[in-house]
């Protein structure tokens, strides 16, 4: 285990040395500031224009939507980070040869792979938690919109990131970095599409379409996990509103995730990681 953690430390140090973490913090800070400014502006305009009770409720729903949009973009940004960060987890250094001397040490390849994965998982989990938390805090401070269940919302977003990191690490054990990048991003997009197909199937009561969306979503659950997270961000009044416009917002869910989906979200990355270890331990370096 100590060697695994040594590799984790090395990977974190690399992310710092290559200025990935400092640059990420700066850009993310910029995003949060921009979000706060936009949110504040929208809030001011809403209060100026709207007078009636019913309209005020609409403003409140609009602000909730803005919060959800902010979180959705955090989800996308974190997804990109997860994929960019780990796309060459072991392939880049295998190709360049800089892994050879490390693997010539008395260390199992699974320790190296797990060490790398832990570092990426840690970075992405912290990133998505902090960013989502900041968006929720900005929403609460400016508009008073309190996220009903922040913990499960953030937890599910973290699970989505863990899946993406593991998917990318898995690919890097047998694909060249560029190919793995292309495949992982395409699958990320496919996951998003599967979500849209599910919402469409649900709205149109079309079982085939729904099943297709769910089947693809089981293999690429990032979008399903995000939508599940979105449920816990919506207050009762917002949920009522999104129920009315069901289907018009394919990035949101208006029902909590099934226990099966949450279990799968936790189990699937572990299965992928097991597969990655199996492949990496047996391949020629």
């Amino acid at each position: 285990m100590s060697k695994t953690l040594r590799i984790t430390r090395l990977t974190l140090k690399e992310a710092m040395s290559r200025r990935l973490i400092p640059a990420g913090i700066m850009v993310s800070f910029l995003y949060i500031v921009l979000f706060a400014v936009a949110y504040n502006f929208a809030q001011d305009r809403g209060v100026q224009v709207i007078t009636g009770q019913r309209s005020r409720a609409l403003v409140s729903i609009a602000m909730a939507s803005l919060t959800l949009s902010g979180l959705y973009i955090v989800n996308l940004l974190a997804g990109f980070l997860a994929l960019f960060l780990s796309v060459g987890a072991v392939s880049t250094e295998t190709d360049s040869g800089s892994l050879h001397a490390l693997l010539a040490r008395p260390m199992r390849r699974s320790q190296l792979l797990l060490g790398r994965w832990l570092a990426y998982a840690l970075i992405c989990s912290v990133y998505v938690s902090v960013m989502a938390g900041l968006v929720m805090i900005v929403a609460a401070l400016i508009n008073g919109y309190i996220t009903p269940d922040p913990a499960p919302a953030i937890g599910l977003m973290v699970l989505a990131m863990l899946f993406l990191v593991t998917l990318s690490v898995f690919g890097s054990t047998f694909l060249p970095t560029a190919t793995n990048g292309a495949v992982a991003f395409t699958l990320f997009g496919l996951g998003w599409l599967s979500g849209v197909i599910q919402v469409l199937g649900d709205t149109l009561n079309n079982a085939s379409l729904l099943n297709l969306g769910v089947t693809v979503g089981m293999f690429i659950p990032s979008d399903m996990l995000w939508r599940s997270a979105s449920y816990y961000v919506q207050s009762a009044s917002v949920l009522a509103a999104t129920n009315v416009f069901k289907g018009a917002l394919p990035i949101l869910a208006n029902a909590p995730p099934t226990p099966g989906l949450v279990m799968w979200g936790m189990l699937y990355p572990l299965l992928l990681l097991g597969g990655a270890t199996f492949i990496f331990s047996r391949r020629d370096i």
Partner: protein
Amino acid sequence: MQAVSTRSLADRPTDLGTVAARESALAIEVTGLRKAYGQHVALHDLNLTVEPGEVFGFLGPNGAGKTTTIKILLGLVRPTSGQARVFGLPASDPGARRLVGYLPENFRLQDWLTGNELLELHADLANLTREERAWRIPEVLRLVGLGDRGHERLQSYSKGMLQRIGLAQAIVHNPRLLLLDEPTSALDPIGRREVRDLIRALSSRGTTVFLNSHLLSEVEMLCDRVAIIDRGRVVKSGRLDDLVRGAPELMITLDCVDADVLAVLGRFGRVLSHDLTSVRLGVTDASVASVIAEVLPRSGYRVYSLVPVQRSLEDVFMGLVEGSRL
């Protein structure tokens, strides 16, 4: 570079059980090793033994299978069939790698680290304790001539310095077997001499050295035994002295070389090469020279010189490698 100090790193307590069992084992034992990449066969039935304490030269042209062999010895590549053992342990066993130091060809490394950090990393992964690392890292830096450069980032190192730090990471845990893949290829003549001195010093302390190289003069200067590999097969192996001073050769210079004189000389040995006025003849006994000196004038040829030739490793190598390509 400085002389190797007498301070030593003891085997970790966890190693002690297997150390005794390995004492009598060969440093390297390769049996029937074969590696195929699809249709391409990189190694055919390779057999090799290296005794503990030897400096062993593994020679061959580019693409002969030298690096593949080293990678199999380190468990980086899985053989298609056959066995590779290091001090009696299967090469795929991580335990075998406790005893091995490795300098890859064109050593590439985590260049965002400093020299000290790289050695810390490798020493840590090689199970050195914090206390051992504290004195050993400055020592190996001095040994490879980078005494005061450990705090600099590897990005700022020259090619030669990178090769030195590569060597430092290979010896940081005082390995019993050192696998060096073209260790001096990036060094200038002074650096090469320093690396040679270091290898000699390590060898004198009992370290087994497996030297992969195509620099024949270097192998000649350092190695006790050599194996020459070509297209995945060992074409010759043995003590360097025996290879170089194997079958004697004669260089005969005469007025004219034609089919008749080649036929005459063919009775005394094997014609290795010839041009218009000279013949290189492989013989079983150099004393046959006096008979040739009598026979050739009787057949109407003028002999200008007839001298025994001391073969160099390069002659042996070229003869074997070129011979197999004809």
